């Protein structure tokens, strides 16, 4: 894709000046690395790092009962959380396939704010508009920039700049507040497995907030999409298009914790209930390999006879552990923690073991 067709986030000039390497992602020209993926990864695991995630899309759902209206489109239960809280959920087709995975912010009964994957922005918005009744959906993706500040030192950095009391902001809580007097939505969420915040701001307030963060800490590590991927992979957090898509169900993907069969009807409920009753045929697992060669997306999972029984959906060298890790779909019954796994890497077989995430040193 020619670079002139890619969109640039409001932070792009800062990151170009900082020496970022850019890659096309979801139609955007995004920083993939600054100083190096392993170094950036360790900064987030041990300190704090700042991510430009403005490529993510945002949809606002408005109505007298926006909560009930949007709740019909998702597998998790917006009625089970109070205003000012977010939840992670799948949005499914009637067949139970995953349209997208979302973070949904319940700002009030009348106002629900949804963060969608960049690559699914147009599809999701069309899906929501088609299936939403009793509320209206508004694509706000062009109106918002987004930063993620992730790592154990995130709160200490952000709190002095933020009008809200971040120490009192619990996990998955959110607040409409200001940073350096600029309006934003701050939530204690992330895609790294570390404590930290995601910050949504009207695009015109993006650079002032960014610059305030860098003024407060001039050596604040900048983190690209490369380390974002290794960080999420160590936590077994799914990446849409790699680990999950419309051919996979949340039950297969290990996301049954976000499927609430006890709630009011939702799209995909019957199909998911039927799959649960009939038996889930395959399971997304995390694994470690013994050998030196990393497993990669699409590599086969093999049985003893060498026949493909599943496939790797994500794989890399874990910067935290220094071993090769990945996620794969394997047949039900072969998915238990401690079970062996065999992965075809080019003309060889690499052996490993299914492990319980997170795939980073215990704390």
């Amino acid at each position, binding site marked *: 894709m020619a*670079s002139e067709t890619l969109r640039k986030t409001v932070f792009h000039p800062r990151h170009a000046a900082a020496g970022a*390497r850019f890659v096309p992602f979801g139609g955007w020209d995004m920083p*993939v*690395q600054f100083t*190096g*993926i*392993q170094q950036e990864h360790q900064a987030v695991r041990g300190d704090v790092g700042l991510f430009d995630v403005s490529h993510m899309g945002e949809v606002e759902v408005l109505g007298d009962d926006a909560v009930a209206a949007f709740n019909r489109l998702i597998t998790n239960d917006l009625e089970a959380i109070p205003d000012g809280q977010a939840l992670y959920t799948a949005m499914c087709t009637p067949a139970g396939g995953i349209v997208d995975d979302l973070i949904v912010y319940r700002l009030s009964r009348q106002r629900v704010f949804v963060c969608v994957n960049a690559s699914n922005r147009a599809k999701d918005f069309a899906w929501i508009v088609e299936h939403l009744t009793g509320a209206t959906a508004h694509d706000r993706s062009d109106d918002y920039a987004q930063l993620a500040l992730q790592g154990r030192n995130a709160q200490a950095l952000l709190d002095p700049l933020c009008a809200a009391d971040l120490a009192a902001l619990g996990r998955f809580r959110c607040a409409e507040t200001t940073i350096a007097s600029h309006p934003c939505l701050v939530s204690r969420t992330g895609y790294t497995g570390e404590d930290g915040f995601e910050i949504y701001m009207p695009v015109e307030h993006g650079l002032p907030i960014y610059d305030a963060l860098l003024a407060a800490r001039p050596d604040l590590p900048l983190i690209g999409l*490369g380390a974002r*991927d*290794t960080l999420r992979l160590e936590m077994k957090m799914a990446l849409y298009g790699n680990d999950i898509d419309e051919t996979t169900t949340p039950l297969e993907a290990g996301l049954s914790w976000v499927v609430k069969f006890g709630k009011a009807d939702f799209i995909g409920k019957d199909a998911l209930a039927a799959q649960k009753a009939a038996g889930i045929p395959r399971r997304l697992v995390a694994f470690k390999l013994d050998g*030196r*060669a*990393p497993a*990669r997306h699409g590599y086969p999972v093999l049985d003893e006879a060498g026949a493909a029984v599943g496939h790797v959906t994500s794989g*890399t*060298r874990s*910067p935290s552990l220094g071993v090769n890790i990945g996620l794969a779909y394997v047949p039900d019954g072969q998915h238990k923690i401690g079970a062996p796994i065999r992965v075809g890497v*080019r003309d060889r077989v690499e052996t490993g073991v299914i492990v319980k995430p997170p795939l980073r040193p215990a704390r």
Partner: protein
Amino acid sequence: MSFPADLRYTKDHEWARLEADGTITVGITDHAQDALGDVVYVELPEAGRALEAGETFGVVESVKSVSDLYAPCAGEVVESNGLLQDAPETINGDAYGKGWLVKLKVEDAGVLDTLLDAKAYQALVEAEAG
């Protein structure tokens, strides 16, 4: 970014150097290692394997990506760099030195003249960068 004048280069970002004993040492360029990022794995052929020019002879993997390695010319592998099994990151630190990949025995070292010289390779890298 360095482009040593005593090496020859391919458009696939490998370098080749004629040694005093007539063998040709092959590696990936400084530009290539920089573009890959942290190298975590290298797969190389065993000694004795005969390579055609342009043939895939191994892979180099970073945290993020897998890249094939292409033989810059025909030849027989006389040695692979064993250091890279334990320390693949050597390629990042010393792409033209300790990070070499294979040594090839060739019929005619004149084949190197068909590859790019440093100036031509640098121009290619700059053109790719736009």
